[in-house]
């Protein structure tokens, strides 16, 4: 059995700093998407708290040594939310924040969908939904077999659960009892054509995963404290793979984007105009985040 590298509990002070950090990351997501002129808003904003928790508290990693052998592996299966990963990586020190403004441009390390041959620190290339989860399983299988100290995480989406390959991989993970594997599902209830339960009902997700041999933990994906606890619990579960169903709000932090599937694939400045004109969308969104920052501070006082 390998040494477990524990995930620490969160102090009140660290929690406040993570919440503020997530808010800053959201601002960068909006700015980089606006500069790119295309890309996805809803998913990245919805996963900002979780990515902040992962990079600033949960993962054992080293931004100066992205290929460190013993790093924890964070796979991303729903590649379209990669702006949240890029922004978080920049904040963590993987590369200069100024590079965020090259997103989706010719010659950039920050491809529209993540590519490991363009940027060190990613674990997999993704965009075509469903391909990341099985790769995380393959890596975890080897990690378990060779008693590696690292843990394998994979962030994925709910719409992606419609792809059969995800369940083929789940069956495998169940068969080999990959306790070193934790899937994190962005349960935001939207996909491109509408709400998941209208497009292709996914529920009961929990029962489905349990039937495939997973331990299921459900959390509020915007409660960093609870999410860290869930990861600690996942690490402690020794006989099964774990899936954390993170209930998130698509577009979280920006009032006029929240819960609206029309913001799945639009950046500020190109989104639906039911609330704000295109030209005002970035500023209005940043305004919301400034207000949110104030709220976070006062809550902790």
């Amino acid at each position, binding site marked *: 059995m390998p040494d477990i590298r524990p995930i620490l509990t969160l102090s009140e002070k660290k929690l406040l700093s993570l919440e503020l950090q997530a808010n800053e990351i959201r601002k960068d997501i909006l700015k980089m998407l606006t500069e*790119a002129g295309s890309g996805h808003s809803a998913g990245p904003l919805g996963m900002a708290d979780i990515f902040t928790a992962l990079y600033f508290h949960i993962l054992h990693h080293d931004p100066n040594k992205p290929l460190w052998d013993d790093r924890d592996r964070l796979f991303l299966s729903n590649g379209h939310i990669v702006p949240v990963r890029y922004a978080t990586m920049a904040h963590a020190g993987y590369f200069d924040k100024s590079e965020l403004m090259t997103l989706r441009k*010719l010659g950039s390390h920050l491809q*529209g*969908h993540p590519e490991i041959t363009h940027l060190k620190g990613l674990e997999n290339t993704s965009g*075509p939904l469903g391909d990341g989860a099985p790769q995380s399983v393959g890596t975890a299988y080897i990690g378990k077999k060779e008693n590696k100290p690292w843990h394998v995480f994979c962030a994925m989406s709910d719409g992606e659960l419609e792809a059969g390959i995800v369940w083929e991989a789940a069956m495998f993970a169940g068969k080999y009892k990959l306790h070193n594997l934790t899937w994190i599902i962005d349960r935001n209830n939207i996909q491109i054509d509408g709400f998941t339960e209208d497009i292709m009902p996914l529920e009961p997700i929990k029962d489905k995963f349990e039937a495939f041999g997973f331990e299921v933990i459900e959390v509020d994906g915007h409660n960093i404290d609870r999410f860290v606890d869930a990861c600690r619990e996942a690490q402690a579960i020794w006989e099964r793979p774990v899936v954390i169903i993170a209930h998130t709000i698509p577009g979280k932090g920006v009032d006029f984007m929240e819960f609206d599937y029309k913001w799945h694939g639009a950046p500020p400045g190109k989104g639906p105009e039911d609330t704000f004109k295109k030209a005002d969308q970035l500023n209005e969104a940043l305004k919301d985040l400034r207000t949110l920052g104030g709220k976070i501070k006062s809550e902790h006082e």
Partner: protein
Amino acid sequence: MPNKDIKLNRDWKKQDALKALPTRDGFGEGLIEAGKRDGNVYAICADLTESTRVDGFKKAFPDRFVQMGVAEQAMAAIGAGMCLAGKTVFIASYACFSPGRNWEQIRTTGCLQKTNLKIVGAHAGVSVGPDGATHQMLEDIALMRVLPEMTVLVPCDSIEAKKATILAAEIDGPVYIRLAREKSPVYTTEATPLELGKAQIFREGSDVALIGCGPLVYQCLLAAEMLAEEGISACVVNNVSVKPMDEKTIIEVAKKCGAIVTIEEAQAVAGMGSAVCELLAEEYPVPISRMGMQDRFGESGEPDELLEHFKLTAPHIVLVAKKILKKKSIK
């Protein structure tokens, strides 16, 4: 000079005067028309209803539209099952995922069984732009044309895409239609002919033949104009029916011009240009240059910028055409 029988838009040369529409728009219109003509036409989409332009059909025939969610493999096989029950079924997604992800289902349930499965691959080529390589399908022509029973159509503008869609519904057996995301000039007209297994000579010429498919055929026309200014007479062929290919026309232009440039927004290996090479190597060998992606993936960037970056625009066609002319004289 443009071929009069082809009835291109009179303003074909003036790009600014032409409408610019993506070929997927023409598909959307053609699908509605096909649905009107035949009550057995169904459409299935995998969570991309608007961007593949199936939304018009969905509105017009809600009970013949089926939503799959993100499940392209099942979409092909379920679609084939509906074909076995007597329907003509269009399955639409981005080309990367269909036919990219579901090739075996298309092979077995579409081709081997010879069902009326019509595969519509949108967002093909590097002109998809900023989404990057994961979404820029470059291997679909190769994947589809290698399949027995499969028909492969690569329309050059949105009007031709509409006709190709209506034609696909009438063909007995599986069909692949390749579509682009980006707007491109609409320069054919309702009167421009489209026939299965026919290539169209858009412009007569005798020194070199530029054979293209998809929106890049327009770049061939522009290149032919540039070549004309230098006294080189270029023939332009719209090779829309990649399979079955119009062998007679291709051999004729090879005989007449003695040198060929092919161009497609796809891997230069195994695509339309390769089909031309296979034919002419056996029937009438002439020097050929295949333009396209040279054994590499695309990357993020603006569509026009990428076409330039990967040397798929008219000025690059001119350069390649002049080079091939030199090979011709050596021979």
